[in-house]
């Protein structure tokens, strides 16, 4: 819809502004805090970038709503209404950011009437601006994107992550999923450490599928639209319709590949993003480890 193009262009502008903050901090030492597990990290830069994005959007669009990773962590209610809503991950790939592993993305999605109207994923160390508007195709640095179209699972390259959970059930589920996919066989498994970038690699055609369990709506809302606008499909890991709040996703080059992955992959229990916020894991203890 043309009426949201202006919002999207504004989103691109502020993503670039935010990237300057991130890239400056990228090389520096960081104080790291833990959220839900010893592998679920947050830094002061995550928080600062999110505040900056929200305040600039609020200034321009005072009636719009927000779902932001760090706001939710700080206790804000996570609710997607019909109102125009910005769904933001200020730094997707915080572990990468802490380690200077060069895949760090700002992810900004925009939904109206609970439908995603545009998605922006800015992989800022690589300077790759991925974007898509509903019905308008997907692009990286203004070059059109197309998924690979691969329909044969045995010729597929699959991107996934182990995730931030370190409890036995989650880890065993995640590693068993990979083992079972490799046994099909598929051609390989890859991981760059950020859900947003993993998913847009499917949109580029460089990978044929991505799946994950345990990520949040802000990690994938933007990239899900980018994949579908590039000709791909997005499903729940059980093969049913994609649900942004379910904490599960398969994004693939084609329906046959998506469905085949759904046959193999098992999910461990995850509390939905839109359930009672008292249960959504919040940051707490600050364990400083300058890196």
């Amino acid at each position, binding site marked *: 819809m043309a009426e949201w193009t202006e919002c999207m262009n504004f989103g691109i502008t502020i993503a670039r502004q935010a990237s300057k903050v991130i890239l400056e901090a990228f090389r520096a030492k960081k104080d790291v805090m833990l959220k839900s*597990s*010893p*592998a679920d*990290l947050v830094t002061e830069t995550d928080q600062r970038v999110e505040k900056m994005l929200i305040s600039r959007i609020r200034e321009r669009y005072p009636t719009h709503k927000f779902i932001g990773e760090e706001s939710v962590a700080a206790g804000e209610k996570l609710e997607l209404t019909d109102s125009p809503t910005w769904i933001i991950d200020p730094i997707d790939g915080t*572990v*990468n950011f*802490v*380690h*200077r*592993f*060069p895949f760090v993305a700002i992810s900004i999605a925009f939904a109206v009437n609970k439908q995603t109207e545009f998605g922006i994923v800015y992989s800022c160390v690589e300077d790759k601006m991925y974007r898509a508007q509903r019905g308008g195709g997907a692009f990286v640095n203004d070059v059109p994107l197309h998924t*690979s179209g691969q329909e044969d699972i*045995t010729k597929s*390259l699959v991107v996934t*992550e*182990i995730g*931030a959970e*370190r409890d*036995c059930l989650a*880890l*065993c589920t995640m*590693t068993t999923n*990979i*083992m079972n996919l*490799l*046994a099909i*066989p*598929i*051609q*390989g*498994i*890859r*991981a*760059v*450490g950020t859900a947003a970038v993993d998913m847009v*690699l499917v949109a*580029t*055609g*460089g*990978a*044929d599928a991505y799946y994950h369990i345990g990520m949040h709506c802000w990690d994938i809302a933007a990239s899900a639209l980018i994949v579908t606008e590039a000709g791909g499909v997005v499903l729940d890991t059980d093969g049913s319709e994609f649900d942004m709040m379910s904490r599960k996703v398969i994004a693939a080059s084609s329906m046959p590949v998506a469905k085949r992955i759904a046959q193999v992959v098992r999910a461990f229990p995850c509390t939905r993003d839109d359930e009672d916020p008292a249960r959504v894991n919040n940051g707490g203890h600050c364990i400083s*480890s300058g*890196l």
Partner: protein
Amino acid sequence: MPDLWQEAMDHAVVLARKSGEIVREALQNEMKVMCKSSSVDLVTKTDQKVEQLIIASVKDKFPTHSFIGEESVAAGQPCILSDNPTWIVDPVDGTTNFVHGYPFIAISIGFAADKQLEFGVVYSCLEDKMYTARKGKGAFCNGQPLQVSDQTDINQSIIATEFGSNRDPEVVDKIFSSMRKVLCLPIHGMRGAGTAATNMCLVAAGSAEAYYEIGIHCWDIAAGAVIVSEAGGVLMDVGGGPLDMMSRRVVAANNKTIAQRLIKEIEAYPATRDDAPIDSKE
């Protein structure tokens, strides 16, 4: 005192860049894919074309030098490292990535004399990152010095590894068992770029604390070993001893503390040495 091998290294950089152009061009066109040892161990015409370009050029400029190249060995050449100056080459490290257009594809050129690694060049051609290291002179990426991470706490580490192309169920079991043990240390995360050379350069750059794998070949790691070492890192065998380039096993880490802690969790399995007699190989 003039550096005996500087001219060879400069030539390696030129060859790596030229090869990178061939790879990028080939990505625009359809590639013929053939299978090597299994349906997941791929080779293409581009692998063979790039290796032939490098061999021909090296033979022309340095006619007395020896050569160990992935595709030449696949075609039946022996894989023996003598004292003679030897180029150890993987023309396309990350062939599966290349077939898919996944963004990590590296040309890896290592060089040894008297069985000692003297320099390494890894060109990550889609990222346009030229990694170089000359023994005793540091490691660089596009001219910028590289330094490994100073992390000594394994719980704060990123570890890179790969699942490889061996689908034997016993091997897969060991791979996953090692992986679970490493994850449960716990560590911050695991990554896999799909090419050994790139994974090693990520360690050299300080982005990951360590990389380990069983099943790679000498041509996958010869160049990366120099780059990691010159960036301040260490190379070891998965059993804890020094790196044996022909053993099919590698641990590349930022320091010995991280390497030794990681090694405790790795379950090794047998892999035929690169320098084993040809009739004993898989």
